[in-house]
């Protein structure tokens, strides 16, 4: 494997950067070269945030190219669509949280939030392998909607298990290293629930 590229898309406050660091740590623990390109918008909460995770022998620059992502972790459907059409390669893997976070343009009626069906249809056009579900709901059932990012990571790890350059255990170790102590147990549970979900998921 020369490169593995992961695009993480969401809105501010969803734990996007934490996910990229967890994946980065897991890759680092395998001695791989890693670059994480983090983007920061102006607003602190609710703005569009995406991270570039680049793993590979000849990785020097922080950002991936268009159509280069092997996987897209979409923490929010609209943001997933926005970054997915730009970065996901044909046949790439998309994990899509279907819980919408509305935008102001949509609220004030100057824009329309596409339906989940339309968004999924767009991914189908990319010939993406797509896993979609309301992962926020799963996180809420575990104990907090804020665990959604790690649920998505667990789903991703389950689906992509064979193509990833690191193991489940590497990811769990990275979670332990990155999450505050009192949140570790819940996060590991969220990861496991996501992983189990992936094993029972039939890709349509």
């Amino acid at each position, binding site marked *: 494997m020369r490169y593995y590229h992961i695009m993480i898309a969401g809105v501010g406050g969803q734990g996007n950067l934490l996910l990229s660091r967890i994946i980065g*740590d897991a890759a*680092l623990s395998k001695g791989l070269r890693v670059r994480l390109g983090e*983007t920061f918008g102006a607003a*602190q909460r609710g703005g569009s945030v995406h991270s570039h995770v680049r793993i590979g022998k000849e990785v020097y620059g*922080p950002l991936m190219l268009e159509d280069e992502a092997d996987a897209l972790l979409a923490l929010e459907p609209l943001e997933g669509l926005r970054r997915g059409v730009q970065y996901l390669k044909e046949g790439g893997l998309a994990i899509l949280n279907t819980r919408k976070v509305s935008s102001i343009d949509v609220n004030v009626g100057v824009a329309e939030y596409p339906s989940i069906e*339309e968004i999924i249809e767009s991914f189908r056009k990319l010939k993406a392998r797509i896993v979609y579900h309301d992962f926020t709901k799963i996180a809420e059932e575990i104990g907090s909607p804020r665990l959604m990012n790690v649920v998505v990571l667990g789903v991703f790890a389950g689906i992509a298990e064979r193509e990833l350059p690191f193991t489940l255990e590497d990811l769990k170790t990275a979670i332990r*290293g990155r999450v505050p102590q009192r949140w570790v147990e819940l996060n590991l549970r969220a990861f496991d629930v996501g992983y189990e979900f992936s094993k029972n998921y039939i890709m349509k």
Partner: protein
Amino acid sequence: MSFRSLANLSSGKYLLLGNEAIARGALEGGLGFAAAYPGTPSSEILEALISVRDLLGIYAEWSVNEKVAFEAAYGASLAGVNALTAMKHVGMNVAADPLMSSAYTGVEGALVIVTADDPSMHSSQNEQDNRWYGVHAYIPVFEPFDADEAKRMTKYVFEFSRRFKHPVILRTTTRVSHSRGVVELGPIPEVRVKGRFSKEDRFVTVPANARKNKIKLLEKWEAISGVVNEVPFNRVEGDGKALIIASGSAYGYVREALDYFKIGEKVKVLKIGTPVPLPKELLIEAAEDVDKILVVEELDSLVETSVKSVLHDSGIDAEVRGKDLIGYEFELNHSRVRRAVAKFLGLEYSAPQTVNRPAVEVPARIPIFCPGCPYRPLFFELRRLVNQEKIPYIASGDIGCYSLGYNPPYKMQDVIIEMGSSIGVGYGLSITTDDNVLAIIGDSTFYHAGLPPLVNAVWHRRPMVVIVLDNEVTAMTGHQPAPSSKDGGETHRIPIENVVSGLGVRFVEVIDPFDIKAVRETVKKALNYVKEFKEPAVIIARRRCALEVVRDLRRAGVEIVPYVVLEDKCVGCGICYDWFVCPAIMPKDNKKAWIDPELCVGCGACAQVCPTKAIIPLKTYDKEGVEKFWR
């Protein structure tokens, strides 16, 4: 793995942010003193250093602005202590005065000045290329391409600065500062925070000394210009008849382009770590036997221009390409560099077209005030006031979260150019127009650069209304403390009203921006006051940043009770979602409002804008107890 948790380690590889790598390099280089004013993309450098301040015994502080931070670091260095100051590119304009003269006097301990430039203006008003400051000031500029090099380079420039008793500029760009890469840690030497100031004439820049300083400066510059040829961050790789010169961040893009075209060894690459001064001998050596040269650098053609000049002087006749293939504006990316390299070498390249078009429109997500932001009700009421009473106004704006007040529906920022400009520019406009000038500025920005223009306005008795939005913190850059922040362990709060009264402003009112009636009445009163008394009026709208409040409530284990819309009372007028515009409030299909309990922070500010009183808390709660957190 926090930066702090690495403080006791002296080896191992970790994933560090470029800015953290710089902080680590500074510690390994013997840093004793650090001062800065926050600014994206530079802020994490001081945040990292402050996080280990007590652990390692270094001195680190947030200063009131970049000039003061620079002067503090310069002073520390005069005592022989190794010092660092960091700023965003435009911050260097504020610090330019001491910067220019620091090269004349030289320093004692290291003085490392980090400038984090922002190509593509992700969070800035311009994309100035601060390498020119090095040319302008006779200060060497070092430019790392990734986090690992940033660490090694920072450590190196501390030694370099000490050796030449000369300040050094370390220039990053957003993608270097805000990307993570694998960094290998080294040992941190014993920290020294005290030194001795030896009195020398060179530090007193009266003209007679300044003239001597200039001669010495030129001698030093010549020595530095020679030594940069041996700096390990400048080197030649590969061989061939074509030479690519890559400065700073450009190196990463160039290496990947060569890998992409599989021509890594067939092209000569001159990697530049010191664009100012350029390693002349190394360049001549690399350029002597090539036919053509491509210079890749982010933003201006600084290296390209120097290369052309060196080649001209040395009679080397190679063709030099650069900005004609790369372009001047915005940050570099892989496609851009690959396209340029392909054209330069005559290779085939078609940039990946995003062939994948979505089946639907993807609406933009414009930035907006956070739920609970104290600025929202104030902007809402200002807009309503000027609309309803047809008040001719100019909203002279400033740099901070409140710049978002430019966006609809508020549209209450008509001019923004730099820190503190709201009062200064508003002053000029108030003389030359008949409109009511409302200067809108935040607390941290007010202390940063708002005081001199306010002094001027008081001095010249200028009728204008100044509204200071005081959320008691530098919020936009990540909640660094400001002089308006509550007393900390070693800091003392300076209430803005005391300063303003001390300047002689006679109309000073402190209001709660959540109280929209008070906002309306006070602004109207101030507008009448400035007309009647022909002098400025100052309103201070004080309430804590909601992000900090929510964090504190969560830490304290206080339940956040969201507000809800009473379906039968809501008439679907849309005031709350069309004009108040909180991310938590959305219209339903029947036009009635709905509040997302996940986003609502329970601030309750929306309840007072609802004409039918349809917005109430989900359940009763200890309002007073929660309110304490907001103050």
